């Protein structure tokens, strides 16, 4: 008997007390928890996202959709970034001409990626209640590693359509078949005396630009 059959056999013997005709869904799961923790307008949801992102030391910027290229240019300039990796879904006009744009190339080695200054991505969804942005490898987000290795990540969130209230709402929008990275603030650790310190292996600076349609 192989190990697969051994383990499954042990599981079935262990569950001798479970009636044979009981289906998995017959174990009742109470679902009276909330799908969000408050009723919010679009503006309130945006404010909460900004507040919770900032609470975990992400740098939050707000701008109109038309001001986006100028905002990105300013952040890269302030950082002194000379090279930026950007996935194909990031429009040419978003990035300043004086900064070298590097494609998200699967053939590039991690070391080459490590030599780049910044990364600019979009996101799939943002969660206001937890201050989380979710990347799912979409066209404007690229492969998982590009938002990991460079030390400076700029992420663009389109309000109001990309912002949801809660974790349950975010999961409903996401496809588990796609690889995902949920990001809540820059990399951090609580490993020294259970005290939170920002900045370990992931980008130490996370800047989130929330864009809204022009009034």
């Amino acid at each position, binding site marked *: 008997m192989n190990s697969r059959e051994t*383990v499954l*056999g042990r599981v079935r013997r262990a569950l001798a007390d479970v009636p044979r005709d009981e289906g998995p869904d017959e*174990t009742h799961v*109470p679902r009276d928890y909330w799908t969000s923790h408050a009723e919010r307008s679009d503006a309130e949801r945006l404010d909460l996202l900004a507040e919770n992102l900032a609470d975990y030391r992400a740098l939050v910027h707000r701008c109109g959709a038309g001001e986006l290229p100028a905002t990105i240019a300013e952040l890269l300039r302030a950082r002194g970034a000379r090279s930026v990796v950007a996935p194909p879904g990031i429009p040419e006009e978003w990035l300043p001409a004086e900064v070298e744009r590097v494609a998200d190339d699967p053939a590039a080695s991690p070391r080459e990626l490590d030599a780049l200054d910044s990364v600019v991505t979009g996101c799939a969804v943002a969660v206001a209640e937890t201050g989380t942005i979710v990347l799912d490898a979409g066209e404007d987000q690229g492969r998982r590693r590009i938002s990991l290795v460079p030390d400076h990540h700029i992420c663009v969130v389109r309000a109001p359509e990309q912002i949801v209230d809660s974790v349950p709402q975010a999961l409903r929008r996401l496809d588990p078949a796609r690889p995902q990275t949920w990001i809540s603030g820059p990399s951090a650790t609580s490993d020294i005396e*259970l005290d939170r310190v920002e900045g370990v292996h992931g980008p130490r600076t996370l800047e989130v630009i929330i864009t809204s349609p022009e009034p």
Partner: protein
Amino acid sequence: MSGTYLGMPSFPRAAAASTRDMRLRGNLRHATHTIRAKRAKAVEELGDWEQLRAAGAALKNRTLRHLDHYLEQLEAAVSAAGGHVHWACDAEEANRIVTELVRETGESEVVKVKSMATQETGLNDALAEAGISAYETDLAELIVQLGDDLPSHILVPAIHRNRDQIRDIFREKMGSWGRAAPRNLSDDPAELAEAARLHLREKFLNAKVGVSGANFMVAESGTLVVVESEGNGRMCLTLPETLISVVGIEKIVPTWQDLEVFLQTLPRSSTAERMNPYTSTWTGTTDEDGPSAFHLVLLDNGRTDALADTVGRQALRCIRCSACLNVCPVYERAGGHAYGSAYPGPIGAILTPQLRGVQSELDASLPYASSLCGACYEVCPVAIDIPEVLVHLRERVVEGGTVTVRGQKTTIKPAKGHAAERAVMRAARWTFDHPRALRAGQRLAARSRRLTPRRLPLPGAGKAWSDSRDLPRPAPESFRDWWLRNRGPDTAGHEGDPE
């Protein structure tokens, strides 16, 4: 790492040593009290915490009651998404599978994400024997590995070390594993984190094989989930060409949407955050994004034995948040090493004796590593009734009985050295069965209460217990007498023992 839990002394002996270590107690007290207050605040933010807790418990119960169904569903989904599924009956088999998989890649180094399962199986030692170096990349695991030490906490394995000690370990040991720490390294946590970043970046950029565990596996989609803070997890999960994940069979949740419960309760219960900095999810392999080969090793190693125990089974609901450690008065004083396994604290006291059995002196002592105060149950995000299981396991230690060991029903003998307890239990049973004797005894105690000593210096085996405890003062009146006096003999009459 040469650290091992094998041959460790029983809990009371190990704890007797650790409770005298004032620095250890200071470090633990500081850390656990800090996180306790923060956690309470993070939980308070969610008005539906109790509903989430009930749903989390029910989801895990559903998984466990139909584990065979979900395991097969998971296997099919992972395979369909390009992953390879392996099954391991025990630790040795899991280690052998991983060692073979690493050998097939031709590599002699792996980077590791913090994983309880591989800590449990002793994977690093097994790999070392095969000439493969395993680099721990979680900051606390790195501290433990460099210090040739053992983890003492589920979430923060180096919780027993303070910043001075960490600085010293980094200064002395980093150089022999790779990039050395700066000579003038201070004990500032930010500087320590920076030293770890530089030391490990070299490893990440060269890594060809990553080894991880997982916090959750979604049966319907075959998705694995790793919840972390530092980004070392992301590095290990995305940069290498081969990823090997060793995961306990109980880590399944039925559906993707079910994650909505645990992704709310785990970070708040664990690090007291609304959300941990990084959560990675992946399903098999993705073309040109992340590892091109993915292996999932499903680990039993005693879990099915725990599953066979209808009372003890609930321990398998555990999502390894470590909230029970942080509130436990025994853990705070004894420290994690005294529990002698990868799983310290209250959850370890019920999980380890079920995974390993209660035949060794250490494992038989674990169900007693508790004052049964119940704080662990209160904070558990999946409502594991730890005191209930502790009492159940104490009974097993003292009385023996039928248990499942490695899948086989076995009758175990009562453990040695519990004769006094068995006698006390028999006496208690007799007394409660004979109310007149109980009443006489209680009255005698009440009348002679001034004569009761503050401590009861027991001889022999009872000495250890009585030495560290004050006797409670007997009440001036027994509850039965109080009831009789206040409520009258009519209401008390049904006990059938009129005077």
